[in-house]
Structure formats: structure tokens, C-alpha cells
């Protein structure tokens, strides 16, 4: 493909996939070493099929939520409301199924519609009124938390449809619960849309230079609103998945996904396509983080290690991308003399 084209264009040039090889696949190697290390340290518990099935299966919700984040991050906007959106939509699933007796499919559609609407509202406030997305989504996220407590009377609601539970965690393919495969499918779809369509390129152009995009005829407002709406939509999917995974909905636990999702998005931007938020990088980052934490827990570490690990990973990811950016800058200056 593009590798072949390259060699045709310039025979002396290396094929594209080898460019920056070390940098692009560094995280993958670190992941492998991490897994190897834990496997050697805890061969009976860590290096087991069951454990790997858990690693891949248990954190698919985080994967979906991280995918929700990278869309607006690519266009240069934050969405700090994704975790609250997930909490609200999972609660909508539980309330409408359990309290109102709605059938599964309409409930799911309603929850996803609610998530999408929240994204749209974020987008309209951020873009049409022109307020920093950081503040808007922080505020909207807090409102959503309030709404969740209000509509649920701060209860944990149990009794989510078994069909949903079956199709998220119980049913397995290759030993891994369906939820993981949904996350993988989403990763593939986002990879295709972001990398292989004009729409995906527009997201990137808007994020890299709003003026440039605007003067190139791109409807910047629409792209940004669309990205925040897409983020809400995917967060809604994550909420439905979360309700299915737990079989219940509680008003707070979903909120703890926010930081890990950011850590995964930023860590993901240091790999595969360094310097860009990208689906495969995010995918690797999620499972790198989960593998690490699972290992630490099996080594007997306290639960606070989770926070140390996620927080540390976020900071290290941001520092690393900044260092990479500076190195490229220096290289660029050197080229220009």
C-alpha cells in the first residue's frame, strides 16, 4: 500500500512503516516487558489464560470511554463530562428497565440518545457561545452528576435485563467477553474514520489550526460540534455497556473512569502515530494500564496503587509527548538551517 507507493516514488527511501519505528512501537515493547515481568513474578496467577481474559474483558468500558475522548481531543476540545455522561446513561438504562419496565432495545436507544444530546449541548455551548470546552464540560459533567443522584434517589438500582448482561459479559468469543469485541470493533471503526476518510482528516485539520481550516473552507464550527456530539454518543454506548457489565447502575462508580480515560488517550498519543490522538495507540494504552494495575494487585499492592499508576501514567505521557515535540522542533530547525 503506502509502503509500496513510497518505494516507487523514491527507491532510496525506507518504507513508511519503518519511520520512527522505535518511537511508534515503544509502548508496545514496554507493555510486553511489563507483562513478561509480572508473568515471571507471579506465574501461577498472572500468567494464566483466565487472567488475560480478565484483563481484556474487564476494562472494555474504559476502552470505549477513551475512544469517546479522542474524537474531541483531535479537534482541540476537551470533554470532561464523558464519565458523568456514562454514569447518567447507565442509570437511564437501569431506571427505565427496572422502574418503568421498558423493553431492552428502546431503553438502550433512549440512553444512547441522552448521551448524544449531552454531547450536542456541550458542542453548542462551546462553539456557538465560544466558551472554553474545559470549563463547559466540567460544568455540564457536574450537573449530570446531580441529575443522576436526583433521578436515582442516590440508590443503586439492580435488575438490569439478563439479555444485556449476557451480551456484554456472559457470552464470550475466544474466551473473552463480548464487551471487549465491541471495544475492538469501535477501535477499528474510529481508526478507519479518523485515518481513511476526508471527515477524519477534517477533524485533524481543525485541531491543528482552526484558522487554517477555516480559510481552507472547512466548516470549523460544525466539525467541533460534531466531535463533541460524537463523544457524547460514544459515552452513551459506554454507559449502556457499563450497565450490562455490572447488571446494576450506581450513581458514582462510573465517575472514576475519567482520569484513566484521559491517561489512556494521552499515553496513546505517544505511540503508533506519535503526536496524534489515535485509536490503536489508545487501545494499547488502555491495556498497558490495565495489565500494569492487575499485576500490581496480584503482587499484593494496596488499592491506592491504582491512582498512583493512572496519575503517573498521565503525567509521564504528557511529558513524553512534549519532549518528542521539542525534539522534532529542533530537528526541523536544524533542517532549515
Amino acid at each position, binding site marked *: *500500500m*503506502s509502503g509500496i*507507493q*513510497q518505494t516507487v*516514488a*523514491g527507491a532510496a*527511501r525506507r518504507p*513508511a512503516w519503518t519511520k520512527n519505528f522505535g518511537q511508534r512501537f515503544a509502548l508496545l515493547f514496554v507493555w510486553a516487558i511489563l507483562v513478561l515481568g509480572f508473568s515471571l513474578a507471579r506465574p501461577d496467577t498472572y500468567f494464566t489464560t483466565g487472567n488475560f481474559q480478565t484483563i481484556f474483558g474487564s476494562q472494555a468500558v474504559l476502552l470505549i470511554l477513551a475512544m469517546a475522548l479522542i474524537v474531541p481531543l483531535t479537534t482541540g476540545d476537551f470533554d470532561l463530562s464523558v464519565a458523568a455522561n456514562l454514569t447518567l446513561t447507565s442509570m437511564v438504562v437501569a431506571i427505565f428497565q427496572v422502574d418503568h419496565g421498558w423493553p431492552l432495545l428502546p431503553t438502550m436507544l433512549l440512553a444512547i440518545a441522552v448521551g448524544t444530546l449531552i454531547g450536542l449541548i456541550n458542542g453548542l455551548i462551546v462553539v456557538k457561545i465560544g466558551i472554553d470546552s474545559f470549563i463547559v464540560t466540567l460544568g455540564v459533567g457536574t450537573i449530570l452528576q446531580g441529575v443522576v443522584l436526583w433521578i436515582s434517589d442516590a440508590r443503586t438500582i439492580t435488575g438490569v435485563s439478563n439479555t444485556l448482561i449476557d451480551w456484554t459479559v456472559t457470552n464470550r468469543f475466544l474466551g473473552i467477553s463480548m464487551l471487549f469485541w465491541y471495544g475492538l470493533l469501535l477501535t477499528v471503526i474510529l481508526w478507519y474514520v479518523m485515518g*481513511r*476518510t*476526508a*471527515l477524519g*482528516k477534517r477533524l*485533524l*485539520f481543525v485541531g*491543528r*489550526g482552526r*484558522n*487554517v*481550516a*477555516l*480559510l*481552507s*473552507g*472547512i*466548516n470549523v464550527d460544525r466539525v467541533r460540534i460534531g466531535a463533541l456530539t460524537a463523544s457524547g454518543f460514544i459515552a452513551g454506548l459506554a454507559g449502556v455497556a457499563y450497565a450490562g457489565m455490572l447488571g446494576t447502575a450506581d450513581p458514582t462508580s462510573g465517575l472514576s473512569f475519567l482520569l484513566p480515560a484521559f491517561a489512556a488517550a494521552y499515553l496513546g498519543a505517544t505511540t503508533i502515530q506519535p*503526536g496524534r490522538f489515535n485509536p490503536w495507540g489508545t487501545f494499547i494504552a488502555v491495556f498497558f494500564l490495565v495489565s500494569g494495575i492487575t499485576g500490581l494487585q496480584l503482587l499484593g499492592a494496596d488499592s491506592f496503587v491504582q491512582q498512583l499508576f493512572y496519575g503517573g501514567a498521565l503525567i509521564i505521557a504528557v511529558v513524553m509527548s512534549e519532549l518528542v515535540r521539542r525534539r*522534532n522542533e529542533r*530537528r*526541523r530547525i536544524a*533542517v*532549515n538551517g
Partner: protein
Amino acid sequence: MMPPPAPSPVAPRLKLSGLRKSFGGSHALKGVDLEVRAGEIHGLLGENGSGKSTLIKILNAFHQPDAGTLEVDGRPVDLPLAPGRFQDLGLSFVHQDLGLIRELTVLENLRLVEWGSAHDLALSARKERERANRIFEEYGLSHLDPDSALTSISETDAALLAIVRSVMGIADSGGGLLVLDEPTVFLPREGITRLFDMVRTVAARGVSVLFVSHDIDEVLELTDAVTVLRDGAVFGNARTADMDKAGLVEMIIGRHLAEAAPLRDRGRQAQARGGASVRGLRGPRLRGIDFELNDGEILGLTGLMGSGFEDVPYSLFGAKPVSEGVLARDGRTTDLTRLSPGAALKSGMALLPSDRQRDGALGGVSVLDNLMMQVMQGYRPWRLDNRRMTERANELLEEFDVRPRDPDAVFGALSGGNQQKVLLAKWLEAKPGILLLHEPTQGVDIGAREQIFELLGRAAENGLAVVCASSDSEQLAQICDRVLIIARGEVSREMSGAELTKEEISSQVLQSVTLSEMEQFQEEAM
């Protein structure tokens, strides 16, 4: 405080000798001497690139000179100046952007510098306000309320506030030098009169003023003496009273030996086919611009900085606010007040902005992405045809002689000239009917500059109409069929044919102000 060692009474306030500065291989200053007497208003004139701003930036310690000496009141001062040292020497600067902070109040802006370095923690709001009122009284600004927001005062008052802030530290000592760097370009005529009054008040207190300007009329009206820079050297200096406008224009422009021949056969223009016309274009700095634009024509727009000529391309593309104006083309009329860049692009216009980093291109993505940005829809938008896009990009890089010929190269790693060639290719690839340019060869080396001119010429021969807004007279003389001079937001003159030489364009630009002012006067009188 100890009295300073008595300076000789005839010593100039500021004396620069043999100032040299080069950037890379090019000499910005080639041994400049400048003398400003105590209490004198001294004009510093010269075209863009003559070395004026380099000289100012050496005085405010931004650049380090390669050679040269500085004396203040007869006492030698070491160059380069340490940052901040100019304040101790009584030098003070007001730049075109004024250095005011919009979000603060008048008082906060006035005291910005002192508060920034104050050690006393408690400030008496009442005393500060009284002091500000006293100072405003002294300089004829008593109508200003120290507590009002900066955004609520006029442009003129803001400029005067910036000047007062600069002189309040130095005027008390009965000395000092105020540097005004193009302070008038954004002011209305009435504001310029008030600014001049204030400059005279300041000078009457013994402060010397170095007045940097493009505008010959202003310099003739205000200054006691002038120094003219040309190509990094002092071309002459004189008492203003001995000079007239024609003499100054000649000093500034001079006669260039190597005149670049125009690239284009202007006779061809006679057979003007259809085209576009712009009617009544008004915006923040534009006061009703009309012109015709023929297919196959390169139309230049120029004027003094701030005259509004640089707004025209953006206004025609929907990228700057327009309050009134229409564009008629091919029997269709476009309302420019409601045009968006997307719609402009669809109607066959393209804009190559001057600020490549901010508006023109994405430095961090590939040449391919930059090239194909607006034509991507044509390459199977839902399953992008990377092979065909790369093929087309390779053809374009060949045709526009971009080096390296690598569509995957990061755009920001290219030289300025190659970047501009990529952007020209990008816009011509969108097959526009009208190409709008703003300073198309800024930051572009000589070789690429000639190539860009050739590419533009070829595109025009194929029927493209080009609007080129530029302050570079040489470039306009080389590529344009006609040039419109804009002054204070209106077309003040149209030039074509044999008139289109670098000297003639520069001279008309420098003389454009009074002409349009008169027209404006008449218009307002009617």
C-alpha cells in the same frame, strides 16, 4: 541623590555612531549614525526593510549590535544594552501595539510597569487615583476616569495613555528620550492632531522624541529634524524646516540601479475579457472600496501600514468582518457581509494569507495533507484514495519545484520558499477563478520568489484573476497589470502601464495620505 556629572550643554541627548547589525548574511544596518538633540522631535524615516525597526530594537535591547557606540547626554554607554537598562538611561518606547492590556482598567494600565516591580505590598487606591488624575490633568487627559475599563476609551485616548505612561517616569528628570514607533497608523485624523499636541507638550518639558514613521506629511508637520534610512544606511539628515515633501520622497526612495524588469507583457491586458467587480466594500478599516477585476489580470493593492489595503483579500474571502459590499462575477452577485470562507471557496475564490503559521498551513502535518486539504472530497471521501492523492501530490511537487519531493515530509520542516510553493499549489489545485494573495513572498528566498512570480504569471495567462495585497513595491512593479493605492480605507489612486515602477509606486504610497484625506474632507463636508 548625587547630581550627575555635568554633561556638556551642547551634548546631544542620544548619539549613535557606526551602528552595524547583520542577520545571517544580510546587513540590516551598515554603520548608522543618529543624533537627537535635547528637547528635539526627530523624525526617523525609511521604507520597510530600511533598518528602522532594527535600530529601535537595538535601543530597547531586543537585538545586539555587531558594532557601534552609544552616548546619552554626552556619556558613553556600553552596547549591547542589558535588558531593562534603557529605562535607567531615560529611554522609553511606545510601539504600534501600545502595550496596553485590554482586560485592565485605565489606572492599572498606567501603573502596570511600577506595580509589576513594586516592593511595597500596600497600595493606597485613593492616592493612586489622585496621582493619576493629576497626571491626566497635566497632559490634557482630564476627561479620563482612572477606574474605567480600557475597552471603554477611544483608540486615540488609549494611544495618549500609552504615551503618558512612557513619559511620566522620565519627564520629571527634565531629560530622557521617548521613542514613538509608528504610533499613528490606527488613529483617525482628529486623533493624530491630539497626539501631535501631546508630543509637543512632552518635548516642551525637555524630553527628546524619536518619531518613527512612514508618513511624510506627519513628519513634516511635527518634527524639528529628520534622518532618512535607506538599505541599512543613513541616506541623509536635515532640519525639517529646510525640507519639502518631494525632497523627502526622493531621499527615501532614491534611485535604484538594478531595476527588475516587469515579468509580464502588459499590452496583453487590452483584450480584457469578463471578470469581477467589487462594489462599496466597507469594514472596520475600509470605507467603500470599488474596483474591477479582469480575468487574466494581476491587480496589486498597496498603501501605508494601517491604510486597510491588507484587509481587502480577507474581506473578499469572508475571513474578515464586512459591513457592506458586493462582489459581482459571471452575472452572479455575492453579498460580502454574509460570505463564509467555505462559500467563497465554493464560488471559486482562493486565499493565500500572509501569516503562514497561523492562517496558511499546518506545520505539524504532512505536505500531502496540506496540499490536498480542500480537494480531498474529490478522492473518494469515505474511502480516501491515498494512492491517487500521493500520485497527484508528486506531480504537483514536480510542477511547482518543491524540495524535497516528498509528500510525506512534515510541512514545517520545509524552507519558507518551499512552503509557499506548496501553498500556491494547494490553492491553484482548487481551480479558483480568483486568487487572493497577501504578501505572497514574505519570508521567501530570492530564488523561490522569482519562481512564485513565474507561477503566478502562468496562472494569470490561463485566465486566473489575481488580487495581490502587498507593501513590497518592487514585487508589485514586477508582477502587476494594475495597482490600486489605498489610503485611509479608500482607493486613492490607480496606476498602470509605464507608471508601474518600484519608485513610482513607493512615491505614490508615501504621498497617498493627503490626497485621500482631502477627498474624505470633501465627502464629509457634503
